């Protein structure tokens, strides 16, 4: 029996659920760093911990018999890849969130109807790329672009997107971000999913009855979208403003320290008062805090002029879009990681060509490559002529994939400790990466932005 369990927001309540169901999943409590777990109640049950959105994929392809994750990620997968092999067995009462299509209250849009008449091309951002595309097709938007993002969708409208598809625990949260709901896409709660073949072939009855017995308070709260109310009129952005993106997450502390050294004062970036729209004391510059993974694509689309991201994410973007107008302006030096290709310590391979040999000799049916860096992984496979290769996109915790669910991992490492702990060995170094400043070639040639941008670059250069 194989069970996929979520990291992150659902972890605590899922641990409580498993305890109530007497599944005895030791070490699944957020304190343990192990991604591989055994059950004290069911000796034949093994569990792995994944990022939530990886779980429906893992169950659908049959790597796991059962999984617990948010229904939003199940629907996201099914929107693009309707699979008969994935079955939703039941909901649990926790992890409620609602998925909304939202616009800024400053955009002057009162409803979804006719939105495509207002914009030549409707720009949609979302972590839920497939649901966003389905939404656009269902609404019959005449021309639209969906920008996949890793998070922080609430900060994009109105300047960087016309619509965002975001998940929130309550519709009331939206007004905090100056957003208004245009449509309610779905309500999501934690749910139990199964692989159809797993259900048909493996005896999961004991575990299923434990999980089935957990009672759930029935709450069927419906969400209604309030009628259009008077909106603020759109305030046109001042021409020539330089738009700077700075990173959230693990890079933010180091980036804040760097910006302080560079004497670029930004209020509200880190600490208790942190916001996604901090204030910079440089005239002619606006700042937003977004995910570093999303920056190259956003800069390429002229939603930002400058951004502080990682060289790894810039490389991933350029692997996908070689002619992109994004370029590196400065290497900033902090946040250094190595991008490496790793395999299990137990695998008799010390290079990519050894892996190829294993396939040729029939020792591996195919090479499964797991990575957050999908485009770098794809190019690595091409460059190394890895035949019979399958790229598995992941959203973090990738170490858990090897050896059972992947053969090769393209992953970043700072000290190598995590790799050692998961018994992985490096067979190739792809890139030495650190934080960098990127810019849009067009913006650099923009007369009204050029001076401000050069000023920012020179301030940062002095701090490198």
């Amino acid at each position, binding site marked *: 029996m194989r069970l996929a369990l979520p990291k992150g927001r659902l972890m605590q309540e899922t641990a409580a659920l498993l305890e109530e169901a007497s599944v005895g999943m030791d070490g699944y409590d957020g304190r343990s760093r192990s991604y591989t777990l055994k059950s004290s109640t069911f000796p034949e049950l093994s569990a792995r911990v994944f990022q939530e959105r990886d779980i429906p994929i893992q169950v659908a392809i049959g790597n796991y018999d059962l999984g617990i994750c948010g229904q939003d990620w199940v629907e996201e997968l099914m929107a693009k890849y309707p699979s008969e092999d994935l079955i939703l067995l039941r909901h649990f009462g926790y992890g409620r969130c609602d998925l909304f299509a939202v616009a800024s209250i400053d955009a002057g849009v009162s409803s979804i109807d006719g939105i495509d008449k207002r914009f030549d091309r409707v720009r949609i951002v979302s972590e839920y790329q497939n649901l966003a595309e*389905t939404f656009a097709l269902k609404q*019959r938007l005449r*021309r*639209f672009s969906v920008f996949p993002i890793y998070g922080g969708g609430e900060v994009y409208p109105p300047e960087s997107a016309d619509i965002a598809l975001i998940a929130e625990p309550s519709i009331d949260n939206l007004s905090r971000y100056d957003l208004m709901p245009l449509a309610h896409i779905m309500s999501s709660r934690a749910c139990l999913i199964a692989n159809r073949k797993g259900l048909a072939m493996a005896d999961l009855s004991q575990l299923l009855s434990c999980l089935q017995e957990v009672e759930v308070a029935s709450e069927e709260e419906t969400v209604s979208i309030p009628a259009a109310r008077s909106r603020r009129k759109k305030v046109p952005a001042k021409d020539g403003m330089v738009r700077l993106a700075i990173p959230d997450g693990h890079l933010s502390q180091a980036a804040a320290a760097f910006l302080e050294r560079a004497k670029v004062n930004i209020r509200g970036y880190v600490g208790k008062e942190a916001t996604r729209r901090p204030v910079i004391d440089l005239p002619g510059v606006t700042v937003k805090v977004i995910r570093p993974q999303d920056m190259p694509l956003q800069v390429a689309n002229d939603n930002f002029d400058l951004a502080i991201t990682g060289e790894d994410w810039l490389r991933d973007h350029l692997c*996908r*879009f070689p002619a992109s107008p994004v370029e590196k302006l400065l290497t900033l030096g902090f946040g250094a990681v190595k991008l490496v290709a790793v395999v299990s310590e137990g695998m008799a391979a010390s290079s990519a060509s050894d892996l190829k040999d294993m396939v040729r000799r029939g020792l591996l049916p195919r090479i499964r490559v797991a990575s957050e860096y999908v485009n770098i992984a794809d190019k690595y496979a091409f460059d190394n002529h890895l*035949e*019979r290769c399958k790229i598995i996109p992941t959203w973090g915790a990738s170490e858990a994939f090897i050896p059972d669910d992947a053969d090769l991992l393209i992953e970043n490492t700072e000290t190598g400790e995590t790799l050692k702990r998961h018994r992985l060995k490096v067979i190739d170094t792809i890139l030495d990466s650190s934080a960098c400043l990127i810019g849009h070639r067009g913006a650099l040639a923009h007369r009204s932005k050029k001076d401000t941008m050069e000023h920012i670059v020179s301030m940062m250069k002095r701090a490198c």
Partner: protein
Amino acid sequence: MKADRCKGMRDLLPQDMRKFRRVEQAFLDCTARWGYDEVRTPTLEYLHLFTATGTLTSGMLRRVYSFLDWDGWSGERVVLRPDGTIPIARLYSENQKKLASGISRLSYVGNTFTFEESGKERRERWQCGVELIGASQPSADVELVLLAADVLKGLGFTAIEAKLSHAGLIKAVIGELGLGADEQTHILDQVLEGNIKALGEVKTKDANLKRAISLLLDVRGDSPGFLENFRALLGKSLPKFEPSLRDLTAITQLLDKADCPYHIDIASGRGFEYYTGVMFQFYVGKKWIGGGGRYDDLISLIGGPDVPASGFALYVDRLMDLLKEDSK
């Protein structure tokens, strides 16, 4: 290591290619005789060409092969052509000045791509089609039915059948059901994807409408007289049906004059949302081998001039399956 073919794709072996070329040549020879000039559109088109028209069903749009091009950072997708007519409408709209003035008669042979989950059905299909652009008269639709029959005769088929339906009639019925915009679209999509029963499942208190739907779904006829009966029964009480019935009657009268057999079967009306008028389905024996219809709004919807048009496509793979292995 075994290298295998992509799911849903087909290899054409020498004996298959002989059949393929036979169908293609018969089609091109025949359409050329009728004054149609061959054109070809690219395999890749922008997705917005197909979303902009609002005329492919959302079910169909969800099954297109779409992806970001190497310079697709703007998020705009390209697709492997899922339909033959919309690209021709774009070609016409983009190259109108280079085409012959007045009526354009265009023919094409091309492949289309649609995802099908099991991989057992074909995901790449070849079709040969014609588009008659600039003519709004029933005689233009009749020309297409006669041309399709001529192509099929040229291939040696005798048991040829044309079934006629009318998009205007189906849309008028749906419009009278008092449904919301979303529901109307949903029902129309289902009907056009072949589930005509969806229309009968909608509940309505209007007795006339109930009768109209029942007649639409159940009754089939082979003459303009049938349509006259239909008009007599419904035309006065439901005047929105009248223009479509008049149009269909005119077409059938012309087909009678040309001694071309047909069946009026409103329930056969599967096709595309862009159809505005008559829809035809072609059969050889009991095998469906293609179809077409009138699409007067399509070209203007994609930003071209307001020009009426109609066309049809015959599916090469289906015709090949019907041909005997006898030609070299």
